[in-house]
């Protein structure tokens, strides 16, 4: 559908309008490529542009590719197309994308840190003194609580975390690939090979099932009481997300935020920066029950459907602990393959599940593990790479 049947000046104004609008959308954070702009120019001449609602729907179908962006689009549309003259004025105030979003240089922060004083002072607390003269520095680092590390030690720990890789193969899929020891006969390849000898079947080709890693969904508590651990866990999740594609990360304090996309950026510093930009309630209070409810309602069916393992990273210190919390935990437990609760509080030897929230949550997890130092994270990785238990054994269990 070419646009050449329109009068030239009309076409030009179209083009101006659309390009300007696309720029405004981009500035508002929507991913709008040049392909979409061309599409829009092709689409508008087909419909009656006198009908505002139709123009809206048309442009929406082309520019919006995710339901979450629909709201931004609506606002932008209403602002941009309010009067024929005003948009030109607005256009001037919209900066070009390359100026508007100049990326901070990835290394800048690390360089800055290297030049400046350590961020955390050496903590004088002596809760855990497992420093012994006989162990090497590396071993000390493995056992040291994240909350008690100096800045240099944290840097060292981050490096260790970045090196961690999860083993890959875990789930058997229903897709096949050539495999000489596979169970299924690959008739197509067998026949093709047999033609080389004029139709005599000499080699039987086989197919085996493709294995792929189970998706991991992490729910990370970012409330004030967890603040010493949050950054390191995010680094950990970034590191494992780098190696395998299907890792979804949600942060929650008083509300739930999906930071999966933000965390996809290659550079860990950039990824963490865009994560914190996405979250409004950093280091605030905790509402585990409400956050889990939101997760169960909005996201569970979308991210847990392929046999996901859920990592719930939280200290479980919830004020509004009531039956709702138990209900939501149960629902979460029943909709995933395995629910692993990682709790930094477990580092204390005499830890007892006294807090109401923890008592409510404990019956609904498959595993309860500490995560406060490098060696516990290492153990977690070992756990995650073990063969998975049969799917949904919890279905047999009666609902609590």
């Amino acid at each position, binding site marked *: *559908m070419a646009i050449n049947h329109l009068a030239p000046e009309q076409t030009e104004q179209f083009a101006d309008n659309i390009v300007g609008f696309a720029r405004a959308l981009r500035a508002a954070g929507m991913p709008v490529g040049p392909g979409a702009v061309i599409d829009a120019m092709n689409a508008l001449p087909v*419909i009656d542009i006198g009908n505002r609602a139709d123009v809206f729907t048309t442009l929406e179908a082309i520019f919006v590719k995710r339901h979450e962006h629909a709201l931004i689009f609506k606002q932008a549309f209403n602002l941009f197309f309010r009067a024929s003259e005003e948009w030109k004025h607005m256009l001037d105030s919209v900066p070009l994308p390359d100026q508007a979003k100049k990326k901070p240089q990835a290394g800048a922060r690390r360089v800055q840190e290297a030049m400046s004083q350590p961020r955390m002072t050496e903590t004088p607390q002596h809760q855990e003194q497992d420093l012994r003269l006989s162990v090497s520095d590396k071993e000390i680092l493995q056992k040291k609580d994240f909350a008690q590390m100096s800045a240099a030690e944290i840097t060292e720990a981050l490096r260790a975390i970045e090196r961690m890789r999860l083993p890959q193969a875990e789930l058997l899929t229903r897709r096949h690939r050539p495999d000489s020891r596979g169970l299924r006969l690959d008739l197509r390849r067998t026949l093709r090979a047999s033609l080389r000898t004029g139709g005599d079947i000499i080699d039987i080709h086989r197919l085996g099932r493709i294995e792929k890693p189970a998706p991991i969904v992490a729910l990370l508590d970012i409330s004030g009481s967890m603040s010493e651990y949050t950054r390191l866990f995010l680094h950990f999740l970034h590191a494992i997300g780098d190696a395998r594609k299907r890792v979804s990360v949600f942060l929650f304090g008083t509300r739930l935020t999906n930071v999966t996309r933000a965390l996809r950026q290659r550079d860990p510093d950039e990824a963490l920066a865009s994560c914190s930009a996405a979250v409004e309630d950093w280091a605030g209070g905790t509402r585990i029950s409400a956050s889990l409810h939101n997760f169960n309602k909005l996201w569970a069916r979308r991210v847990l459907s392929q046999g996901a393992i859920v990592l719930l990273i939280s200290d479980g210190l919830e004020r509004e602990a009531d039956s709702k919390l138990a209900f939501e935990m149960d629902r979460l437990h029943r909709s995933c393959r395995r629910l692993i609760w990682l709790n930094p509080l477990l580092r204390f030897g005499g830890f007892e599940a006294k807090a109401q929230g923890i008592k409510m949550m404990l019956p609904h997890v498959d595993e309860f593990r500490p995560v406060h130092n490098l060696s516990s994270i290492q153990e977690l990785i070992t756990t995650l790479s073990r063969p998975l238990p049969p799917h949904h054994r919890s279905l047999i269990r009666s609902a609590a």
Partner: protein
Amino acid sequence: MTLSANSSSALPASVDAMLELLTSRGYLAERSLATVTYLSLRMGRPLFLEGEAGVGKTEIAKVLSAALGRKLIRLQCYEGLDVSSAVYEWNSAAQMIAIRMAEAAGDTDREQLSSDIFADRYMIKRPLLQALEPDVAGPPVLLIDELDRADEAFEAYLLEILSDFQVTIPEFGTVKAPHPPIVIITSNRTREIHDALKRRCLYHWVDYPAAERELAIVKSRVPGISAKLSQQVVRFVQALRNQDFYKSPGVAETIDWATALSELDARSLTPQVVGDTLGALLKYQDDITRMQGDTLQKVLKEATSET
């Protein structure tokens, strides 16, 4: 993006005509849905419909094929869907017989044999390949249903088909559609579909209909229902959607429920009859449990007042 002369004649010429076409087949669409459908026909672009289950995403493909007189080819996606069940497969048994026959006849020309057995007649065509074939009635409607159920590998495979409308078969060559089919893709969002695929499509979020439209839908789909009951049904369902349920009822559930009530000869909604038929609307035990008692009374009161 060009349209052939023979197919465009059947296509509606404006958004209003599209709306009329859908309505004539009993699909009461929002104007926005008619607009994107019209655009996708005119631009030759696949239409990507997302929304909750039961809002009529699949239905539009069926209606479209019926209204335009085109063949409907449906590909239901599932985990593990691969090329041999979505595009094509060789009929190996028949091929083997052909080889044996050639042997028995003393035919030893390998090249000849190879081109003989990888011919069209030994190929089993699956939905995607069928959709690329020319049809006398014009390009078919290809419905790729619940794409979110297929895995990422299949999605990547679709990219080639959806942008060039062609399939490459190693033994055979490239099959290209003379006229691109009308493609409708639906997703319930059980996982995110990759942006690369969405970029090739027109995207539209299908929402629950407004009360007025839903009432019209119920009346047209459940002909025997009384005005009073249909009104109460729609109000009840609309009120349910405002509740904090795990799965809100879709239009399909509304129609089911209205049909059930009309089968039971219900005159109006009572706690008894609602309680007995709630399973037609709510599909999770947790949701049904929550509806017992006060909530039911409240919603029921809302639905039956001032009628």
